[in-house]
């Protein structure tokens, strides 16, 4: 090979001026595969083994083994974006089916192949609103309880526009309708709400929020997820224009916040949608074939006038999510969602029975998680629980938040027992 390229060594092929050549070493040891595996294992073994009653945007539902085994097939794992659809039909169909799943769940006509996560999907929703707004407004309204990661990401996304993010108040962790109405004016381009909310409450007045948004000629963006959508009100039925959220509640185990940005919207915004879309077409033999479509919206064609800068997305996580949904089926998804309600209620009841604890703090229906008030400092309670093998959220000086998603009943029993000891 060297002969063919007229070089004595591969080094000769580099055309790097001496002044910028790197003649040093990184100081990184080379290792065998086995040594590397042992190294990573030894590092990660420093993570404590805890039972996590954690949620707030990232959930550890049990993922059926089927999902791992199918998604790990290397044709899925090691292929590139489907720019040559003739040899990518399998993955394109998967993404088409994923889009279809979200269409059914949201009731909206269009869902894209994925954004990075809920926070970035929210950011993209705001820039969509900026592009399609029928008013000349610049205000984006979000709940005051919005997760800091989502709020901050949103602010970064709109920093290059003339949009501004403002909070509206919540009442007992749901939207404070009166306060929202007071906050709305002609200058509002998007109102964002969540169902369930970050504190696990089920939002009761989506329809009214939809009306307020419509009256303001603004976009109604709703944050939710596929499991919640299996049971709670269908966004299309309450006037939602854009659904965002994290679809990795299906398919991905707990993974330090790694997500799958859900993005669905109305057909009228089709040409303004960010991210990849898979559509149906025909091939030369008139057989159905799938392909990435409407690529003129995207950065590799439209450059600085693209609807988003996204390129690499979360396609493989979308595959996992689609498989998990398929494994559950419609009844399984509804059941899983229902258990999110009943198990949260049941845990709240049991926790409420513990002296020195009151739960739920909010007088609402809950989905999957809820806030509990503890007489002792919440951080001390959390630290003591951690000693006993349980992780919970500290949300305020005397508030902890507990999530039942993915935690088996016997582990919840263990938690209640530990909590009793801790607050004793």
């Amino acid at each position, binding site marked *: *090979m060297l002969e063919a390229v007229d*070089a004595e060594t*591969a080094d000769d092929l580099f055309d790097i001026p001496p002044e910028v050549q790197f003649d040093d070493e990184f100081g990184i040891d080379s*290792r065998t595969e086995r040594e590397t595996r042992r190294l990573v294992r030894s590092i990660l073994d420093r*993570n404590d083994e805890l039972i996590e009653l954690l949620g707030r945007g*990232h959930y550890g539902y049990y993922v059926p083994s089927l999902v791992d085994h199918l998604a790990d097939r290397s044709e899925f794992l090691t292929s590139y974006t489907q720019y040559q659809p003739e040899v990518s039909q399998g993955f394109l169909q998967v993404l088409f089916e994923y889009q279809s799943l979200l269409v059914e769940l949201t009731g909206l*006509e269009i869902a894209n192949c994925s954004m990075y996560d809920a926070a970035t999907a929210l950011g993209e929703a705001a820039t969509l609103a900026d592009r399609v707004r029928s008013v000349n407004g610049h205000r984006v309204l979000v709940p005051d309880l919005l997760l800091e990661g989502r709020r901050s990401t949103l602010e970064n996304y709109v920093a*290059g526009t003339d949009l501004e993010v403002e909070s509206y108040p919540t009442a007992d962790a749901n939207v404070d309708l009166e306060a929202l109405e007071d906050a709305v004016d002609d200058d509002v381009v998007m109102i964002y709400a969540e169902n369930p909310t970050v504190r696990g409450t089920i939002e009761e007045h989506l329809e009214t929020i939809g009306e307020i948004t419509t009256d303001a000629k603004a976009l109604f963006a709703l944050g939710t997820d596929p499991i919640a959508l299996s049971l709670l009100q269908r966004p299309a039925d309450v006037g939602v224009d854009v659904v965002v959220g994290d679809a990795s509640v299906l398919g991905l185990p707990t993974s330090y916040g790694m997500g799958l940005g859900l993005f669905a919207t109305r057909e009228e915004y089709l040409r303004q949608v960010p991210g990849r879309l*898979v559509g149906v077409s025909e091939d030369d033999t008139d057989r159905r074939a799938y392909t990435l479509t409407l690529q003129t919206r995207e950065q590799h064609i439209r450059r600085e006038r693209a609807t988003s800068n996204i390129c690499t997305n979360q*396609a493989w996580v979308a595959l996992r999510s689609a498989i998990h949904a398929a494994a559950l089926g419609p009844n399984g998804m509804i059941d899983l969602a229902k258990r999110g309600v009943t198990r949260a209620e049941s845990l709240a009841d049991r926790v409420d029975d513990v002296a020195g604890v009151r739960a739920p703090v909010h007088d609402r229906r809950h989905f999957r998680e809820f806030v509990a008030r503890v007489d002792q400092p919440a951080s001390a309670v959390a630290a003591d629980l951690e000693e006993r093998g349980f992780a919970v959220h500290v949300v305020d000086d005397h508030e902890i938040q507990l999530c039942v998603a993915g935690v088996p009943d016997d582990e919840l029993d263990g938690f209640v027992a530990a909590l009793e000891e801790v607050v004793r």
Partner: protein
Amino acid sequence: HYEPLLAEKDLTSAEIDGDDTDSPLPDDLTRDDLELPALSEPELARHYTRLSQMIYAIDTGPYPLGSCTMKYNPKFMEDVAALPTAAVHPDRSERSTQGTLELMYRLQDYLGRIGGMDAVTLQPPAGAAGEFVGIRVAVAYHEHNGESHRNEVIIPESAHGTNFATAALGGYDVVSLPSDDGGRVDLEALEAALSENTAALMLTNPNTLGLFERDIAEIAEMVHDVGGLLYYDGANLNALLGRARPGDMGFDVMHYNVHKTFATPHGGGGPGAGPVGVVDELAPFLPSPRVREADDAESDADEPTYELFDPEQTIGKVHGFQGNWLVLVKTFAYIARLGDEGLTDASAKAVLNANYLASQIDYEVPYGPFHHEFVASAGDQDAADVAKRMLDFGVHPPTTKWPEIVPEALMTEPTEVESKATLDRLAAAFNAVAAEDDETLESAPERTTARRIDQTSAARSPRLAWQALDDE
């Protein structure tokens, strides 16, 4: 080679408040029903197994996509990412996640060394997100210096589309920079483009033609002289591993495409990760949180402890949590496996392979000397047709029609993983297609799962969900 849609196998409508169910919620808080396929595990296993067999992948053949660096993804990386100890929630205490924090700290360190950068954030979940961090950092930096008037980002014409889109998303005006005759940055044009309004120059090096920007030191000086920042697009870093570092060339900020350079799998489009490195001066603006060694007076442990911290003038967050953690675990494993020796060897083989392949094909390669990739010209043939026809020879074609500086571009990057035999097979495919007539090319491909697909009708009457197929 046809697999019906899940929905064509079954659609079951489950009612929330039907006779058989018992909703824990009042009607007005729930939907009415959910209509989805209800299939058994065996049926699903077959569905996805069959679909997987209709996908070309790096595990089925070479994938020489220029600027995409489709290298083989070592299998063991999946194993380490699947370790149960990697499955932690982002809201856990730092005390209980020392393993995660240590791995992130060490990866920050590795990446800093490899790029010659002083500080690294792992948060951006993709290359474009990394670019966005770079742009947001530039905004914050200039604002911090009272230079909010800077509103222009200069980008070479041949740059990746994400550069333009990201600069625009960041609120900047894009100033497009033409190439010189040699395919590199035109210094005069750069001089003309630079001004007191310049916020940054975004550059890939080697550029998308595979050419090293030999004048990089001068370019850096010019940009810095007007107070601008120099941004390095990491898409082509594979060419330079152990040979040159963006930090040493004068770049102030860069992103790493770990799914390109560090072999984390592309997953059919993602997830990747786009960590960003910066020089000291920009470190205070990086996203929050980052990881550092804790000042560890209390601890009597042998091992250092790690903690999260917010950079002083942080731009905040660009992801709800900490980015694509599982991808980062794989990245760390890959770098730890290769080390200095393996990384330096990778760039040597990547460049040798590209040069060898270029020497074996009949298409003209107008620019050089190139590194890890080259851009051939299909000449009188349509590059997109060439690509379709190459599929018939059982290989994946190169990226086509870009960069536009080469007519009917065939942008080709074989990567270091391909053997001579595979490169010869690729060359044979190129050359077979080069000898064919337009008619053959236009009717290609003919040996693939689907034949040529009608893109126009897909876009004209979009059908984007199975629900849209109802009336067929």
